[in-house]
């Protein structure tokens, strides 16, 4: 559905599922999924680090696949299902990847953590027992300036072990 606003930028009504709940919003054609999540829905766990697809801080799962939400238009997400970091823990119980990040010291400033955790979760969903190399490849698009990735890789491998 398309409406015409004062500024003559086209607006669209989008309906998407975020963390299991249906959300409806009126968005401009150029609004990114990242801005929709953060500004309209207040899912600020999805971080903004570059808006160019370089850092991975804005990673969310779109129909289960990790994507940079700064590179996806809100209208493209219409009818799809999004998981943000806020949707991982269930009734206060952390996802095993989150738990492992906490216990392995994989979090320092934490700005990359939501994106990292979601990349890790997406990897384990499609490959429950990855090798270290596969973990590194899965998070290669998520930059972290604090940790040197050492404990992040360790945490994702530990979460995989906890799966079995």
């Amino acid at each position: 559905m398309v409406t015409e606003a004062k500024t003559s930028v086209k607006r669209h009504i989008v309906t998407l599922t975020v963390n299991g709940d249906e959300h409806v919003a009126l968005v401009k054609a150029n609004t990114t999924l990242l801005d929709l999540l953060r500004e309209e829905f207040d899912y600020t766990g999805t971080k903004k680090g570059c808006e160019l697809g370089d850092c991975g801080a804005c990673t969310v799962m779109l129909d289960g696949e990790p994507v940079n939400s700064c590179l996806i238009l809100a209208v493209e997400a219409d009818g799809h299902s999004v998981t943000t970091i806020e949707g991982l823990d269930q009734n206060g119980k952390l996802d095993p990847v989150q738990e492992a990040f906490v216990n392995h010291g994989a979090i320092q400033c934490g700005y990359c953590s939501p994106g990292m955790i979601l990349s890790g979760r997406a990897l384990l969903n499609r490959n429950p027992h990855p090798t270290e190399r596969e973990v590194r490849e899965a998070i290669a698009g998520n930059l972290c300036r604090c940790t040197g990735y050492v404990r992040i890789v360790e945490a994702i491998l530990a979460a995989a072990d906890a799966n079995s």
Partner: protein
Amino acid sequence: MSEATTQNKEYSVIGRSFPKVDARDKATGRARYTGDIKVPNMLYGKILRSPHAHARILKIDTSMAEALPGVKAVITAKDVPSTMYGISPARYDETIFAIEKVLYVGDKVAAVAAVDDETATKALSLIDVEYEVLPPVLDPLRAMDDDQPQLHPQYPRNISVEIHQNFGDVDKALAEAYHVRTDTFSGTRTSHVPMEPHAAISKWEDGKLTISCSTQSPHYFQYHIARVFGLKMGDVRVMKTFVGGGFGGKLEASGAEYVSAALAMKTGRPVKIVFDRWEVFTHHRGRHPQHITLTTGVTKEGKIVGCHARFIIDGGAYTSLGIASAYYAGAMIPLIYMFDDYRFDGFRVHTNLPSCGAQRGHGAPQPRFAFESQLDMIAKDLGMDPIEIRRLNARKPNTMTPNEFQVNSCAFTEALDKARNISGWDEKKGKLSSDKGIGIGCGGFISGNGYAIYRTRLPHSGAVIKVSEQGDIATLYTGAVDIGQGSDTVLAQMAAEAIGINYEDIKLVTADTETTPHDFGAYASRQTLMSGWAVKQAGEEIRKQVLELAAEMLEANVEDVDIDRRVIYVKGSPDKVLPFERVANEFFIMRGPLVGRGKYAPPKLGGKFKGAPVGTSPAYSFAAQVSQVEVDEETGQVMVTDVWDVHDCGQVINPMLLHAQVEGALFMGMGEAMYEAMVFDANGKPLNANLGEYRIPTALDVPHVVSDLVDSYEPAGPFGVKEVGEGATLPTMGSYANAIYDAIGVRIYDMPLTPEKVWRAIQERKRM
């Protein structure tokens, strides 16, 4: 063995790897960073920045921007105080907006506040600025020449600072040396690249300015912002939100706070400014590119007898913290090896490029790369093993450097020995296949700065702990700033240990100039030692009050009463016990709030010569790092396969966090060694101010890392602690360069160690 062994004591809370206090908030997305926060009625601010490296502002027309619906304010230099600010005293040279001239691509020219981000961005494009473009100064090695344009009228020949320090008789020492080498090295402009951009939200209500921001030092922000706007410090409240990394870049207020404050004052509404990635890069304040010439002499046996270090340092447009950086460059050279005769001549110059300041390792990593490289060359000239020459010269405990830094604990020799063992050095050095090599680099760093950045009699840290009326929890109020490194966790452990309760019992209120006691903040690797002292003292004051009352309640002598993890007991009488909460509750009923207070000021440190305070510290850390590389001779590609880091950092409060600091620092060193450099076109425009083209290490780039420790105890630190957060950036560049030399016999003198450079050096070697 150092005095460490005599100090070994059983601790209940420190020395254990508790998860960080805020890890769950961060793992679940609950943690709110400044950019995540919205307040009612908030406007979005944006800054218009100069497209020219050097230009005169002739005219600014804001009328079109003002007319755009949704725009609430447009401001330029004429709307804000013209007070100069900065962070190096006596060198304040920035204004909120450029007044006459812009000095780098990215300089602040005007700003808008609008109802949303998009309107603000659009309004910026409607501001019309007329510039007269001036020739820029881009080459630091030419900046002092007479024919170069001048950036600042107050700094003739573009000299930001000129330093000459002379200890002993270097000329004589070098003249008498058995062997002398002179070599020149250079480093690049690398940047902190915190994943979270700088951000601030300012509110102006009833004459009071409240700023929530991403900061390493609420105190310095408050001090400078109050000064610029002519407000009482008490009318400026600076509060830290969660911070997504700083690494030195968020120590000084950036445009985000000054400009959002000015816009809030003009509109009466809260204003949020979040930098974009381009602004983070051009605001910079990161590493200075240094040109370093070292002349070093040794005896026949390899003992260093003297060193003369000369620097030309590119400071960029403004001073930032660059005076200290320039002093650090030379001051840290004689720290880790013992020699008496040392001279250091340095110039920091201005160029029309982004301003340089403090970045992890502050001023010291590039000179350390130079020294570690040259020391390997000297060892080769003498036919010595690189670790042997380092052992021979390694600093010893309880010694003084020529520039009068007092070193107490020092397990550098032990660190060298351990690095040698765990890396398998003896089996590998000179014995690896022709494409592989192993190299060593070392470093040492301060554990907090001996003097504050501006002159003040304030102690460096304060802390208050208040026990709840029921005695179940204790709240630590500290101005210390957790930017991800984990100070909240470490200080909570220290508080619990000092009181005698559990880690989980400690709650925190931190980094807010109104509610927490003064602390200078997160820089110079100071908080574990300095904030730690204040916290320990506050905790001990509570312990003392509780034990005194408990002794009365137990009818025992106070000397016989002790506490461990909430259990108060009489030594030797196992049945005489009281729970902590009983006594704390009783204390409140009888005497009122149970509070402990602490403060820390370092002792008077350092010599009397000009610049003597820079580099003074109550304690110094030491580190040895061995790296192993594989080099592809066809492409020049270098793969670092393994790094072994051995740190002498005193008593460890939280091993997991400590090793995480080493790993992070090491990878920042690795980025600087292998990839990172800001580059500019012939007009001074940045070419790679984004995360795609300015390359930081990714998860695929990293070697296997072993972080190890040596037993050590620092008498000047609470519980024996000293530095860990920055020191591991220092050895990395040198150890990589030395490993590459070991692999293929080529020496790279300038950073970073790119495939092209390595390949060219290989071709050069083949021609000879």
